[in-house]
């Protein structure tokens, strides 16, 4: 019975039961596996009406590009979005978790979520795991107190800034921001500046690439511009494609027809008085 208990879905949180085996393998000379990282350039800036977030779309696994068009701008609340850099599983899991917590909080309080709430939930989770949950985030949103932009580091420290960049391409993007940012940008100027900063990361940083995603958050409205710019289209596609003249040799074939699901509607019997 005790073995069965381990397989029944637990109460959530991390389970450490394979750690002993994995540590034993490490002592035998095992190299720990590499995880999917989002090399990344993520940026955010505050403009006159709200916040604009931007991100590239490349996900790397070591030197290989695993995903050419992944989504790095995660939904937290209707008025709050979060860009994530670092280990992809950690950024996705932590943003999903805090998004659910914010929803429950909205039901509980009956009010729109505030950016500082998301900030506190994220930083306390990351701090309690002492940086082992490797998620570096740019959190932005507009609530009743106005537009806010924060950066959150994997160990749990935060900064509140008018413009911010994170990830391996952060220096390339920050160079653009430092030279061209000013207060009171209009929406179009802000979007253009964010796109330029992300492009700088895409073209100069090897860990970032592919397309530009942008999210514009203003009071009461958000626009998620997925693939706003596609500066790296595939231009070498052959019109004919590949045709294989020699068919693959097959040793064995088995065809299983899929059964149609039949709905059985039983006529309900009237309950006996």
């Amino acid at each position, binding site marked *: 019975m005790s073995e069965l208990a381990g*397989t029944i*879905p*637990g109460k959530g*949180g*991390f*389970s*450490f*039961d*394979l*750690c*002993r*085996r*994995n540590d034993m*393998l490490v002592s*035998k*000379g*095992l*190299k720990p*596996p590499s*995880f*999917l990282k989002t090399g990344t350039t993520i940026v955010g800036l505050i403009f006159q009406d709200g916040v604009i977030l931007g991100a590239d779309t490349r*996900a790397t*696994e070591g030197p*290989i590009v*695993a*995903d050419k068009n*992944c989504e790095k701008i995660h939904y937290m609340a209707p008025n709050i979005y979060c860009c994530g850099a670092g*280990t*992809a*599983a*950690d950024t*996705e*899991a932590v943003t999903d978790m805090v998004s659910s917590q914010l929803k429950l909080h909205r039901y509980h309080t009956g009010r729109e979520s505030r950016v500082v709430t998301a900030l506190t939930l994220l930083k306390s989770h990351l701090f309690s795991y002492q940086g*082992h*949950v490797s998620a570096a985030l740019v959190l932005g949103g507009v609530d009743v107190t106005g537009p806010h932009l924060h950066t959150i580091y994997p160990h749990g420290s935060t900064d509140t800034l008018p413009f911010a960049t994170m990830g391996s391409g952060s220096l390339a993007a920050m160079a653009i921001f430092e030279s061209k940012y000013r207060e009171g940008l209009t929406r179009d100027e802000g979007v253009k500046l964010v796109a330029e900063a992300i492009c700088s990361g895409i073209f100069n940083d090897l860990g970032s690439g592919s397309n530009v995603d942008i999210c514009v958050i203003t009071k009461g409205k958000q626009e998620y511009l997925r693939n706003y710019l596609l500066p790296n289209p595939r231009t070498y596609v052959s019109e004919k*494609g*590949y045709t*294989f003249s020699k*068919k*693959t*040799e*097959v*040793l*064995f*074939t*088995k*065809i*299983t*027809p*899929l*059964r149609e699901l039949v709905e059985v509607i039983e006529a309900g019997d009237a309950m006996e008085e």
Partner: protein
Amino acid sequence: MSVKLQIFEYNGSALVAMVGKNCFAIASDRRLGVQLQTVATDFQRIFKIHGKLFIGLSGLASDAQTLYQRLVFRHKLYELREERDMKPETFASLVSAILYEKRFGPYFIQPVIAGLGDEDKPFICTMDSIGAKELAKDFVVAGTASESLYGACESMFKPDMEAEELFETISQALLSSVDRDCLSGWGGHVYLVTPTEVTEKILKGRMD
């Protein structure tokens, strides 16, 4: 002098899934090895969850079999409660959650999930060993031969292929990639799924 233990290369594997027009194909190699020695040439890497949902598990074979048993258990519980099959998107989230639960002591596997969702729309995705989902509209690859598979699929893939052509493309991509990888090969195993039938084919490849 022992070879340094690379856990993902302990057994060797190659997995690929591709999307076609209202159909999908998922293929794997058939070798099971213990580092450089081949132990089996008919190893099953792709498992059926339900009629229209398949999961391939690459990496350490023992973790793959353990995880498959846990997933079948969870799916059977779901079927009993909900009286219907799980949608591929839901199943992918389930696998991701089970893998992320072991974030600091992970299973050494990389899954490839392929299924037909609502209105028989094909769905494929892969994950790293801690559950970071990677959805794709064209193809996904995993295993020791993944770098060659990326190259082969990137050039051979065309969108909206019919079942016959999709089978040819995925087979050629798999066989040419495993030929460049010592740890995978010994034939291929392809499942081609359309809304009406599942075709399972075993391919003849180089046995070296």
